[in-house]
């Protein structure tokens, strides 16, 4: 009974001038699935997210959301950015209600409750900490009950403790609301903590597509967790050797280049 979208990326390519950022990328995401995308900077992660959101047009190939090709910005899709991108001249509640119409205040209030900031509803953004700002941004994304949530490294700039807190919050809300989620991150541990699957993007292509079969909530101390992180990190750091000798295990699905 998931209300998340079914997402299919088909033969997707994107070039900026002569530079190919994404090359014939294929990816399928089931409704309600949480997929974490990792990769070095410049591997095309953010471009992929922008294409899925409809902010950019692909050079070739396409994206299907519930079988419909993405042609413009979709109201069922919400995005969170690395910088919270809040409106400093609006108080917290109005930031959460951005773009809502009709009687939006109770909804915004409720979204703030979900992220635990209901007592800050009437504060200015400037007085909030970095973590609180991202929670407001999360509330803003949740308030319209999105069916696809795109997270573009939203936790990247937070300190370690706040980050773990936010990861738990995102996980809880995702489990509760079952929207499809795509998380971009540099942090392999974060990817393994949150993702049903971890997808490694390398030079515009999928280099690794790995299911994470661990029960939630996941613990960093767990040996299976550590092994997965190690496996992914190893794959990222030693690109050449692994590419010549792919070693698929049970949980590893290497998509052809």
């Amino acid at each position, binding site marked *: 009974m998931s209300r998340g979208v079914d997402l299919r990326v088909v033969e997707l390519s994107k070039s900026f001038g002569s530079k190919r950022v994404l090359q014939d990328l294929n990816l399928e995401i089931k409704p309600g699935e949480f997929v974490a995308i990792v990769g070095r900077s410049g591997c095309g992660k953010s471009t992929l997210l922008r294409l899925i959101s409809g902010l950019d047009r692909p050079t070739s190939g396409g994206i299907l959301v519930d079988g419909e090709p993405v042609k413009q*910005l979709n*109201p069922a899709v919400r995005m969170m950015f690395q910088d919270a*991108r809040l*409106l*400093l001249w609006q108080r917290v509640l109005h930031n959460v209600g*951005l*773009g809502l119409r009709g009687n939006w205040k109770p909804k915004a209030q409720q979204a703030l409750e979900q992220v635990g900031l209901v007592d800050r509803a009437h504060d*200015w953004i*400037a007085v909030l900490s970095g973590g609180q700002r991202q929670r407001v941004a999360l509330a803003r994304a949740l308030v319209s009950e999105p069916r696809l949530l795109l997270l573009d490294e939203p936790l990247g700039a937070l300190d370690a403790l706040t980050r773990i807190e936010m990861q738990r919050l995102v996980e809880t809300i995702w489990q509760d609301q079952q929207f499809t989620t795509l998380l971009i991150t540099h942090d392999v541990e974060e990817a393994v903590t949150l993702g049903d699957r971890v997808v490694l993007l390398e030079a515009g292509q999928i280099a690794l597509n790995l299911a994470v079969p661990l029960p939630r909530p996941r613990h960093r101390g767990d040996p299976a967790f550590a092994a997965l992180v190690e496996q992914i990190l190893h794959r990222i750091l030693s690109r050449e050797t692994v590419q010549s000798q792919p070693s698929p295990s049970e949980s590893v699905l290497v998509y052809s280049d």
Partner: protein
Amino acid sequence: MENTLRIPSSRTAFIQRVLRGSYLKVLAPWGIPLLLILIWQILVQSGVISTRVLPSPASVVQAGIQLASTGELFHHVRVSALRALIGFAIGGSIGFILGLLNGTFSISERLLDTSVQMLRNIPHLAMIPLVILWFGIGEEAKIFLVSIGILFPIYINTFHGIRTVEPGLLEMGRVYGLKPIELFWQIVLPSALPSILIGVRYALGIMWLTLIVAETIANDAGIGYMAMNAREFLQTDVVVFSILMYALLGKMADAIARWLEARLLQWHPSYQEG
């Protein structure tokens, strides 16, 4: 023993405040002007400065009281303030609209910006002879000059404010379903506002400057007329008083601009206490 040491609480509070320096902080900015006036009075009274060169502060105050009692002062101030206001409204609107257009649409920027920049580099006071030829020496000439003076600072700061809106915020607005007109009201205009208000403050300074020059050309009313008229009759005290009136009005305009900033930019980190 303890009871005898107790001081009435209001007095304690006063002493504490003096010690913490909050009264001093309020009074400190006025210290130097007061000292200067005192020295001025002493110099004039002792005859070091001739009263024809510079009247004593006391006689300037007296001239002010005299002018106020006949109602002449208020008439001239009203005339000057009205000129300033009308000029500000006209020049400010044109500058603001041009800034909005050129900041928002690149076609309009390509068409207009170069021309505006060329006009901006002509000192507007250099146009006085031309303005007199066009409008004569009536109200229009003064209002025109004030408008021109105000137009450019408002234009440049509005343009700059709109150009420096964070692209990330606009992108966010689009993802969150804002229509173009909503993007403008909710994101573009508020984020350009600090810059626009800087333009307003700058324009206010130019407004008084222009008015002072324009009012001394040829006139039948206004603070400038009051000063020029007094000059003919060698009433140095009235001349000095007129100059002080300009200072006072300028300070008032600046205070209004500050108040506007504090109200409109409540959200801005530099306007928040604590």
